[in-house]
Each structure stands twice: as C-alpha cells, then as structure tokens.
C-alpha cells in the first residue's frame, strides 16, 4: 500500500522542510542530491542486511521526481564509482558512467578505486561521462591526457545563485596499485583546495561552495579527513564525503562546514537543501538520507 507513511519516509523529512516557509519567501534555493562509493552497484544489493536496497534505475527515478518539482538541483557523487560487482570487471566502469550520465549527474570526483582499471581504462570509461569529474589535489604531469579530462573546479549558475564545486582525493599510497595511477601524483589537499576556495569565493563570487571529497570522514588523526579539512580550509559550506562508507542520517557541522556521507552502494541518496539569506548567506534548511528501498518493501 502506498500510504502516507511511505510518502513521508520515501521523500524524507527534507521534502517537508523544503516546503517550510523561509524568512525571505522568494530567496533562491538549491537542493544537493548526492551519492558516494556506489562501487558498480548498478542493481539493488542481492544479499546482506541491505538486500534489495539501491539500484541506479530507481535512483534515477527518484532524482527525476525531485527535479520535476522545478527547484534548483544538483546531483553529485563523491567517488569510488568503480569496483565491487561483476559489472565493473566486465564493463570497466564505462557502464557506470554511462548510466550516471543518464541519471543526470552534474559532477563527480575520483576515488581510489576509480583507478582500478588503470589510467587508460579510466580515460576510456570517462568517454561515457557527460558530467565533469573534479579534483584539485592530484597532479597530472605524467598523465596529461587524463589531466585534461579532469577539472579542478566548476561553477553552476542558477537564477540568483552560483554554486562552486571542486573535488579532493585520497592519498594513493597503500590504496592504489602504483601501475594504475602512473603519472598521477597526490598532494595534501589543504593548500590546493585553499587556493581553489579563494578563487571560487573572490573571483567567481559563488554563493555556495561544495567540495566533493574522497578523503573519508574521520581517520582519527592518521591522515587528512573531512573533519580536518573543514577545520583547516575556511570557506567551505558543504563537504559531500565518501571513502569511509559512513552511514550518516544527518550532516555533521564543523565550524561553518556541513559534512554529509550516505553509506555506500547507492542504498541511500543524500539530500541537503540550502537557501540564500537576506545578506547572501547560505542557510542550511533541511537534509535527509533518502533510502532507496526495494520494490517488494
């Protein structure tokens, strides 16, 4: 039975929140939808406690439904699109990017596993991506052709609202086979991200600054993570995280930065809603981790 409970749950509290009156009724708004660590789970999970959850066809349907409400919306991914099911072994990530493009993704970033098909494999798969892949802390001296395909940042302009987007990736050492990232280097993200944030704030004059991060939420001091990044790089409104496969019901806030991550395998779709306040400040006004549930319920 498609009852009211289903409706409330399916679209989550954020949907209700998006209907709440704001201080300035006409202020520009934006909805960020996001995934992380989808790991080639193009179909719903077949087993385990999350069996039946996920699937890119239903994710695409949910996104379409939310888009049909007419508001400003971005669909984003925080990396590790590749590796995890036979779909990756068979189609080497091309199918993932093709279906993500069909689902309407606006931007993504690179996780460590997105190098699992090697540089050439990644370049081939990227031919299917109609959305930009963002990263500002990798160096491309030894892989210039791949570097040309990756943008350090981008700006999405909506009526009355500019969103700046960039991405950061996790250190390769111990995670990526050296042969698979040959020519691509890693830098600590703090300095390069700081430079991109300044550019987006001061030159591009964005209203909302979003970082797609594959660093991981919390490494307890062992390595740079999203919690540290928020402290060390001022000026970030939102970090959409990944890598640690962390299931969060709501974002955490560190200083002025909101950090969110929604598990893995596309079992949830993250949602954060923002409005511009009277002084042009971004006001966070709702969030939810929307579960993509099984048809069978």
């Amino acid at each position: 039975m498609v009852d009211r409970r289903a409706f409330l749950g399916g679209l989550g509290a954020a949907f209700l929140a998006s209907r709440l009156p704001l201080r300035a009724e006409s202020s520009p708004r934006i909805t960020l939808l996001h995934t992380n660590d989808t790991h080639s789970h193009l179909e719903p999970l077949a087993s385990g406690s999350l069996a039946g959850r996920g699937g890119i066809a239903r994710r695409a349907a949910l996104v379409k439904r939310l888009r049909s409400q007419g508001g400003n919306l971005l669909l984003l991914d925080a990396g590790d699109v590749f590796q995890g099911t036979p779909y990756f072994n068979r189609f080497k990530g091309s199918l993932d990017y093709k279906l993500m493009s069909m689902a309407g993704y606006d931007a993504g970033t690179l996780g460590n596993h997105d190098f699992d098909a090697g540089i050439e494999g990644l370049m081939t798969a990227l031919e299917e991506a109609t959305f930009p892949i963002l990263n500002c802390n990798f160096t491309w001296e030894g892989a210039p052709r791949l570097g040309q395909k990756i943008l350090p940042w981008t700006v999405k302009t909506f009526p009355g609202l500019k969103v700046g987007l960039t991405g950061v990736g996790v250190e390769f050492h111990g995670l990526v086979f050296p042969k698979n990232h040959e020519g691509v280097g890693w830098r600590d993200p703090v300095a390069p991200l700081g430079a991109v944030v300044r550019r987006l704030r001061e030159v591009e004059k964005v209203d909302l600054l979003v970082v797609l991060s594959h660093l991981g939420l919390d490494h307890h001091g062992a390595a740079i993570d999203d919690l540290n990044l928020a402290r060390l790089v001022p000026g970030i409104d939102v970090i959409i995280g990944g890598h640690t496969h962390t299931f969060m019901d709501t974002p955490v806030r560190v200083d002025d930065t909101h950090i969110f991550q929604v598990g893995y395998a596309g079992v949830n779709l993250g949602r954060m809603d923002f409005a511009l306040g009277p002084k042009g400040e971004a006001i966070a006004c709702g969030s939810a981790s929307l579960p993509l549930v099984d048809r069978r319920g």
Partner: protein
Amino acid sequence: MVLSSLFLSGALAILPSAGTPTLAAAQPEAVTPALPEDPAVAQALAPCAAIIRKEFSQVLAQASKRIPRGKLGEENLLGYWVTDLMRERASRCLGQPVAFAFINSGGLRADLQAGPVRVADIFELMPFDNELVVTEYTGREVLQLLRGGLIKKAGEPCSGVLISLQGTPERPVVSASWLQTAPLDPETTVLIATTDYLLASGDGLPTRGRSKKVIPTGLQIRQILLEACAELGSQGKSLPCPAPGRYSFAPGMLEALLERRIAW
C-alpha cells in the same frame, strides 16, 4: 558568506556545536517501496545485466563447507585456500619449489559460501586484476613479514609455513617452520609467491623499496581460482576447506595481541 547553523527538519534543530549532527534523523523505518525504476536507465541496464547473468552465473564446483575469512584473531581459511593455490601454481609455473606464498586479508573481499560456487562468487572474493609473481626472500625476511602481519592484522594468510607466537607480551618471540621440514633458517633464500600489487605497494613488506628480482607469471590470481574450481568441478570433487592450525599462540598471547598489549 557564513553558513547559517540553522537546519530545519520539520522542527527547529537546536544550534549544534562542532562535530554534532545538525539535524534530527529522517525516518527511514517509515519507508515502503513504490518507487518505480527510471525506464530509460532500466532499459540501458537490461542487456548488460543479461550478459552478466550469463557469464557470471555459471556454476564451477560445489563447496561442501563455507570457507570463511575469519574475524580478527581467527585463522583466514579462505586465505589459506588462495595462498595454497598461489604456491602450487607458482611452483608449477617455474618448475621449482616455491616455499611460501602470502596475500593480505584485505585483498579478499567476500567469504565463499557452502553450495554452488559460481564465477560471480570468485569475482566477488577477488575483484582485483592482480597477478601472481615470484621473488626471492631470505628466511629472515619471511619472518619479518610474518611478524608484521601479526602486529597489523593478528596474522595474515599464508601458505608453506607454521607460525608460532611464544614468549610473553613483554618479550614476544615469533618463530616459524617450513611445512614438514626444518625450522626456517634466516640465511637461506627461498622462492616466495605473492601478488604484483603487494610487492609494489604493500606496506610493511621487509623488502619494500629494495630492488628484488621479480619473476612475473602472467597469471591473474582470480584466473587461478577460477581454473582450480573448474578443475575440481570437472572431477566431481567439492572445494576443500583448509584446516586451521597454521598459527599457534602461547597461552594468553592471542588475547594480548588483540588487545595490543605486546611490546613489539
């Protein structure tokens, strides 16, 4: 621009402090299905799903018992099965005995369940395209590697040796002996098998950064597992679950290891 700390979730949230949730949780338990699939995406996926089903659902053999990876502190029987095969195939490939094989437990991504073993199951437990390689280690280097595995993961899966952690938490003693033969001589050089991935990037390898002669076999680990299953299946045999007992611990030493009380 400063982001407002105010999040609304149907009700006003209290102004949060750093590191705390900014919103009350949504109510996932209230969800029921009824979300249709996007027809265009579903249509694009369908022929690929058919290919996957066809290629990956083929049953290779039967496993009479579940072959688990084990939790931390338990022996990794799946790892034993994989490293035994690596050692055997490396020996066959080189035409000379390979004394030792190892992988990292993190490289095995799923347990092998009892019942039919499908191509997909092997891909699931070994999704990476890593290759079998052979190199030379001294007995001392093998011991260093085993000790590192004990410190990091309470013992990593390997083949060809029996490992023992004796002594006390204050004075731990790691020793090992070759299967059916003498104790491991620190000075003797032996052939060992591992993956190109571990040799190139594995943390804590005693030979990390040192140039070693590496003999590639051209065999993917996954291909070795697939062929071994197919061979057993064609002979009507089921997959053997390796016996535990490669690691042994003096009383209290496993507990000390798991509680990180050992003064390495």
